[in-house]
């Protein structure tokens, strides 16, 4: 089993931490994993993305030319990555910001109102966690509990932050 996921969005939407979180969780669950941040001169402000590969065996390349899953937090990311998704794969999008007109019928589209939900919990910054929760539920790539566990370790003692993020995570997880 080798599953690759691309998380993409604006800088500031926390796409890297989504990916890092997934990678950590997968590692805790004993999987082989690689996390590849997009970097480059163009990353002045602009968009950010990262690729996470999860597998039972050695991972050949951390790059995803045809990812199983893509998570698009904004419109430009959707446009850029929708055609890369592997046929049969899933394209998650932040329905609060993105309206998905894609010609492709061979992939599943999953809209998650991550922005709005986060707004409601008035912590707009945690839209990424809402999305990650939904992602975990839908893909079963890792258990949501492991993701939550990772949150604790990453955010160390910041109890308040942990609470918020966990709440967001579960909100997303509860969506389906």
């Amino acid at each position, binding site marked *: 089993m080798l599953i690759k996921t691309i998380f993409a969005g604006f*800088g*500031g939407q926390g796409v890297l931490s989504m990916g890092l979180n997934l990678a950590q969780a997968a590692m805790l669950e004993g999987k082989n994993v690689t996390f590849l941040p997009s970097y480059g001169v163009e990353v002045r*402000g*602009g*968009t950010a993305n990262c690729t996470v590969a999860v597998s039972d065996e050695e991972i050949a390349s951390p790059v995803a030319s045809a990812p199983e899953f893509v998570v698009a937090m*904004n*419109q*430009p990311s959707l446009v850029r990555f929708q055609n890369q998704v592997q046929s049969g794969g899933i394209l998650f999008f932040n329905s609060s*910001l993105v309206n998905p007109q894609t010609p492709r019928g061979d992939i599943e589209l999953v809209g998650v109102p991550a922005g709005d939900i986060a707004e409601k919990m008035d912590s707009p910054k945690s839209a990424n966690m809402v999305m990650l929760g939904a992602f975990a539920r839908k893909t079963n790539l890792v258990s949501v509990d492991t993701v939550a566990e990772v949150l604790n370790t990453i955010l160390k003692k910041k109890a308040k932050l942990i609470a918020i993020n966990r709440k967001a995570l579960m909100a997303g997880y509860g969506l389906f």
Partner: protein
Amino acid sequence: MKGYIEIDQEVCKGCEMCIVFCPKKAISASSTLNASGYIPVAFNHDGECNGCAICATVCPEVAIEVYRD
């Protein structure tokens, strides 16, 4: 109103320095995202703009054109 400005909202990165320096408070933040994910500013057409071009002077993105009579 002695002057007005046109803001290219797709070029604006929402740094809001024009707002900071506009002597007439003739510019204000908007809420819409542009394609690059920035929140551009907007011109208050009902404001006092005198076409002093201070906003254009400070605008890092050269997003502003200024008109005066």
